[in-house]
């Protein structure tokens, strides 16, 4: 039974129409890709209208007829208004921030109303999963988020989504399916425990006195992009001397090489989880770190951008 319904669904799926692509990565909702059906409330009102009609016929009251027909007319024109409310909208993928496996990927789509007609109650969905809703003034855009829970590291492509509306009266439900080429980078889930392999982990720096380290304060220099915020001399900033970074030096600079081969012999995913943990650890301790994977080596460094580069390498490992 389940198998049969699955077959029917997949067979029907072949006939599903999707919003038309606009050639620049976005899609446009055209009439042919728009679906519309009455909602439960719409069907209930239809039933109520039949009862009213029966009453009008029975008592032969012309004003009762008139009001019943007027509501019937509103019911019918609601179809057009719901249809129009979705028609012509453009959807374009927007930036998605990477997440760790197990977290929710917040996909973000920019919906644009290119017409002078205001749109209301536009909502984004994936199957039963409800995303955000918004009203769109004329010629306006807005961002709609759709949270999808992630399972594995890697690149999570945005599944088929749909844009919905029941505006104006909630009597009809119009929707359009859209396939958009966007994905969310999913970093491995950081391992819960584990320490970096001990040997060859820390190396002394030759020019420890002047280089980067964490032990002793050695002086100030002007801020460079990538400097850790916790090294910024905030007091100097408060005295209006601009952004100045504190320099630390020491006998030895802490540096860690996160080497794939030095990890215990466990499966790939566990190793990636461990590496992820070490990267976050090193970053939080302001230890310079490098990454060595079987097919990729990243020179030691520090800072948000370096971290993202390393995590991205883990996320896409083996692709």
């Amino acid at each position, binding site marked *: 039974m389940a198998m049969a319904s699955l077959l029917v669904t997949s067979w029907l799926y072949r006939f599903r129409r999707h919003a038309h692509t606009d050639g*620049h990565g976005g899609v446009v909702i055209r009439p042919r890709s728009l679906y519309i059906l009455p909602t439960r*409330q719409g069907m*209930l*009102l239809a039933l*109520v209208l039949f*009862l*009213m009609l*029966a*009453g*009008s*016929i*029975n*008592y*032969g*009251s*012309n*004003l*009762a*007829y*008139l*009001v*019943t*027909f*007027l*509501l*019937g*007319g*509103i019911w*019918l*024109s*609601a*179809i*057009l*208004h719901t*249809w*129009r409310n979705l*028609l*012509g909208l453009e959807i374009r993928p927007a930036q998605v921030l990477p997440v760790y496996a197990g977290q929710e990927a917040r996909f973000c789509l920019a919906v644009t109303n*290119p*017409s*002078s*007609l205001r749109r*209301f*109650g536009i*909502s984004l969905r994936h199957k039963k999963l*409800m*995303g*955000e*809703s*918004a*009203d769109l003034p004329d010629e306006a855009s*807005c*961002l*709609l*988020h759709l949270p999808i829970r992630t399972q594995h590291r890697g690149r999570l492509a945005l599944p088929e989504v749909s844009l919905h509306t029941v*505006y*104006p*009266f*909630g*009597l009809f439900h119009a929707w359009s399916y859209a396939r958009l080429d966007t994905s969310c980078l999913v970093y491995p889930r950081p391992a819960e425990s584990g320490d970096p392999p001990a040997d060859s982990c820390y190396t002394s720096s030759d020019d420890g006195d002047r280089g980067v380290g964490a032990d002793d304060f050695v002086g100030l220099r002007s801020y460079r992009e990538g400097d850790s915020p916790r090294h910024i001399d905030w007091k100097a900033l408060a005295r209006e001397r601009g952004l100045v970074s504190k320099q630390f030096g020491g006998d030895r600079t802490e540096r860690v090489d996160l080497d794939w081969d030095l990890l215990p012999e466990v499966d790939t995913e566990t190793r990636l989880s461990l590496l992820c943990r070490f990267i976050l650890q090193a970053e939080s301790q302001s230890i310079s770190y490098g990454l060595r994977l079987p097919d990729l080596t990243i020179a030691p460094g520090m800072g948000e951008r370096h971290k993202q580069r390393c995590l991205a390498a883990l996320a896409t490992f083996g692709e």
Partner: protein
Amino acid sequence: MRQTIEHTLTPKLQLHLYLLTGLVLVPHVQHLPLVVSFFLFTTLGLRLISLRLPNLQPGRLLLFLLTVAGVFLIYSQHQTLLGKDAGVSLISIMLVLKTLEVRRRRDLYVTIFIAYFVIVTQFLFDQSFLLLIYLLVLLIGHTSLLLDINRVTPAAHFYEPYRQTLWITLQALPIAIILFVMFPRLSHPLWHFGLDGGGTTGLSEQIRPGTISQLIQSSEVAFRVEFKGEPPPRETHYWRGLVLWDTDGTTWFTDPDKPIPILTSRITPTGEPVEYEIYLEPHRKTWLFALDLPAIAPTDSRISSDFLLRLNEPVTQPKQYEALSFTRHLSNGLSPTYRERALSLNNGITDRQRQLVEKWRSSSSSDSELVDQALRYFNTQPFVYTLNPPRYVDNPVEQFLFEDREGFCEHYATAFTQLMRLAGIPARIVIGYQGGEYNRLGDYYTIRQYDAHAWSEVWLEEEGWRRIDPTAAVAPERIHSAIQPNFGSIGAPALFMIDGQGFIGNGLSQLRMLLDTTGLQWRRWVLGYDREQQFSLMRGLGFDFLTAGYWGAVLVALIGLVLALVALQLLRQGRLKQDPVLAIYQRFCRRLAAIGYPRSVHEGPLDYSERISRERPDLASPVQSITTHYIGLRYSEGKKRNLGNFAKQVSRFRPRRVG
């Protein structure tokens, strides 16, 4: 701005809903039993208070108890749950009970749908234009709530959803009109509960002293008449409604055990026929009004042998019908049964009455002369015609004839009929309306309740039934002009309405006529629109060839057409007006794209122009010139723009591929 769909309802929205609910129920107060109205508004009040004090929100148990109480209330008031009155009580109670449990969107929908139903039930009681407007406003109000909850951000002003709903309603109006005109009307109800009580003012099946003088305090319209051709003189406008044959001395009626059969014998009409059309207000009776002898009856009615138009069903909706009457006729013979019935006397006969009649008989040679004697008696003796006669308790005829001598038409008619029977002349009482107000603007007569009248008919061997109006003998003005209902003291003489007294009086009467004319059109085309009118309208439009099947197809096609027009309008409405400068520039871009230099999405006009100049130095000069021209035109607001040169420049630009 963005959010996930909220499923709870704000207190403000709920307050709006409950106020509308209350307003929907207000007109029903006059139709519902007092206890039911009390229940409705108390419950609604509880709901409003619990918005502010949520602790007072009734729980499940109280809600259940209220429901039981409501059903019990309906049953105790109406002894049933079916039929119009009980049904309306039921649906109204359902509406207020539903408001008590509005928590989510779904509840709001159910409440509003019940409110729609309550709106429609109002028209079973009252079909006035004002009520329609009032209820349409409420209908739009309820619908606008639906629109409001389907927005994400609430509207800045409450009227904004109203305006949008009004707009959609206006688009729905043509559909409603098409359905109204073309939807097949039935001539009989689908089912009949037989429970609908009357409550309208109007003539009843019997009269006793005081019935008509009460009725004439009302200026409600009974019906309107449009004569085809020259109207007969006003003093012959006796609109017959019902003939009363039997009496017990106080009340006159027609014994329901001895119904009057349908007219079978031939009547010889004399004189010219009168053709007219009547727009009758619902009076909940099974008779129609017509002049003297109706010769052609409306399709759903029959002519009884006392010349009345009888129906099977009571008139509960405005009705219009055409009829043709003869004002004079010769009846041939009165059957012994009816002669006996028209001569039967009650036990209120006294010696004084006998002596009076014997005196008339002795001084007249024929029945006709005796009738004249009687009329002269009313005319010469000090009888007073008054709207507020004294209350006659036992033997009203005797008291009226010999003691007080103050009375209204029913007193004269009953006394006269009784005396005629005593004299051996078959006589009966007719009730209906007499006169009416002529509307110059619309060329028709409006007959109101205060035109109600009672008169007699006597059987004379040589001519048959003859109409005798004893009131005319006392107060001939009554027959020539309408009564002004005054509420003076008992015994105050009746005043008669004189048209056009002075400038203001004239203006007021004009205005009244204008309003009444509009009223007649409303009744004719909206309230009275029925099967026959539908057919004649379709004939007029040339649709008479349509059979039932095609009829439906045309209906669907017309509605489809309206919907297509609305859709087109919606599409046009949303279309942006494109800047003509941009359109010309895009033509320029297409030409460059055709030779392999498409403009990227992110590329501004200047960047594009620079790139083209770099890659195709041969095109640099025209491309740069067009771009400068374009930017100048597009980003210079307010200046009068001359597009001609720009358009020409682009038209001349015909780049070619290299090699």
